[in-house]
């Protein structure tokens, strides 16, 4: 599913975001990437989405090598990913339903299924009643749920969520993490970045990747 071998990422200004990263994630795993701000969590996610390319090392996601050379293939690879961005990246002026459908239009989903799948996804995140609300009129938490609905409606092989608990109180943060955990199955891998380590301390059957100044350590927790 994901294989990183000696991956480093250095930005143009010289900042080293990732340093010789070794990581292997299997299909159906639930992975938390934790660490303080600036530890490289978002940079790693950007690499996994093909937004950035490794400066050195080998990285493959969903069987495709992440490299500038394969930019076209990386765009296709993104169709198999359900991203939940830190700032949501919902399309303003559109309803929740339109936003969810927008992420599915270029996938192999029939016209008949588009609306139904979007409806189902909104129902899963508890926002069926807000389907026709414009996203700019939704609360922070609701907008985040729309972003999650957009990600899961695409039936992705990999869900990548960047700091989904960032601006939420503990109760809502736990709910969001539980919601994301519910999408994990034998075919779907979920990777969540969070700096709220206290929320995941007690969690079982997960892989926790601790990041610190671009280096990482992997902890696999059994059931």
């Amino acid at each position, binding site marked *: 599913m994901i294989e990183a071998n000696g991956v480093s990422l250095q930005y143009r200004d010289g900042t080293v975001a990732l340093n010789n990263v070794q990581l292997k994630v299997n299909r159906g795993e639930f992975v938390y990437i934790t660490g303080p701000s600036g530890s490289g969590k978002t940079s790693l996610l950007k690499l996994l989405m093909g937004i950035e390319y490794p400066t050195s090392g080998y990285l493959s996601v969903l069987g495709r090598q992440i490299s500038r050379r394969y930019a076209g293939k990386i765009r*296709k690879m993104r169709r198999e990913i359900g991203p939940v961005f830190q700032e949501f990246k919902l399309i303003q002026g559109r309803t929740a339903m339109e936003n969810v459908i927008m992420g599915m239009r270029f996938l*192999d989903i029939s016209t008949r299924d588009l609306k139904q799948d979007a409806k189902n996804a909104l129902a899963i995140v508890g926002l069926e009643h807000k389907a026709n609300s414009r996203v700019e009129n939704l609360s922070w938490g609701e907008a985040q749920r729309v972003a999650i609905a957009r990600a899961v409606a695409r039936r992705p092989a990999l869900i990548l969520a960047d700091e989904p608990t960032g601006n939420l109180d503990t109760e809502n943060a736990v709910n969001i993490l539980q919601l994301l955990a519910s999408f994990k199955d034998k075919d779907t891998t979920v990777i969540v970045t969070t700096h709220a380590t206290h929320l995941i301390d007690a969690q079982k059957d997960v892989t926790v990747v601790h990041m610190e100044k671009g280096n990482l350590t992997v902890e696999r927790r059994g059931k």
Partner: protein
Amino acid sequence: MRLFRNTGYFFKEAAKVLWMNKVSNFFSFLGTILVLFLFGLVVSGWKISDRFVEMLQKEAEISAYFEENTGADEAEELVNVIKTMDGVWDARFVGTEEARQRMQEILGDEAYILELFEQNPFEAFIEVRIDLSKMDTVLEQVKYLKGIAYVRDNRDILKQLQDISRVLEVLMVLMIAAVGVTTMVIISHMVRQAIYQNRDHIYTLRLLGGPNRFIGFPYLLVGMLLTLLGGCAASLSIVLLLREAYGRMGGILPFIPLPSLEDLVMWPTLAIMGFSIILGLLGSVFGISAANREKRS
């Protein structure tokens, strides 16, 4: 297939993009109508002048005068010889009496002058209708025929008319270039502006794996719709103008042989619509590629 499946979505997106900058897009639309309207006018003018020159070319003729003491049989023989020449549409004998009658018709009220002559002053000649492009060859051949004293032609006038027609053709080419460049600048600028304003939306679609053709198609439609609608409006204006002006043109300039109204209307309409489709497509493509270049730089 997915492109067809999303047709409704593409049109809705295009409408949203157009609505987003309604004031500036409205003026772009007006500009496009005006430019295409001017183009239509030039095409109409060219069509009229082309018809005029074509008619004149068909009417191009030379007059071949006989040597003294040329008999009727020899004259008829000469007419037959000239008829067989390459570049000659027709040749006919004009006798002295017919030549006098023609002059009477030309002089009208002043024809009484001819009464002052005791004898008919006009000579018989052969009226030769020719293909203007072969005038020089025909002239040379006729001039040296035995029994022909000299030849008169209206070459200078015809050459001037040909020059005018060429100038109009050059003007049309320049107009096509001006319309092309102006429309493409308007459309590509508008598309680029729309892409810039929707850059977050576009970036999100890219992150979600949207293919370039899916992301770019609504912007292509924006350019196409604007030029097509502009073309329709310009065509309608041209049709209305020509219908109104056709009768008057015939009255004011009776010597100009106008093409039929259907013909006159059809050409600028076809030219405007064809041109607007091509320009809309090219303008949008340039706009999209310019926006992509800006993004990369």
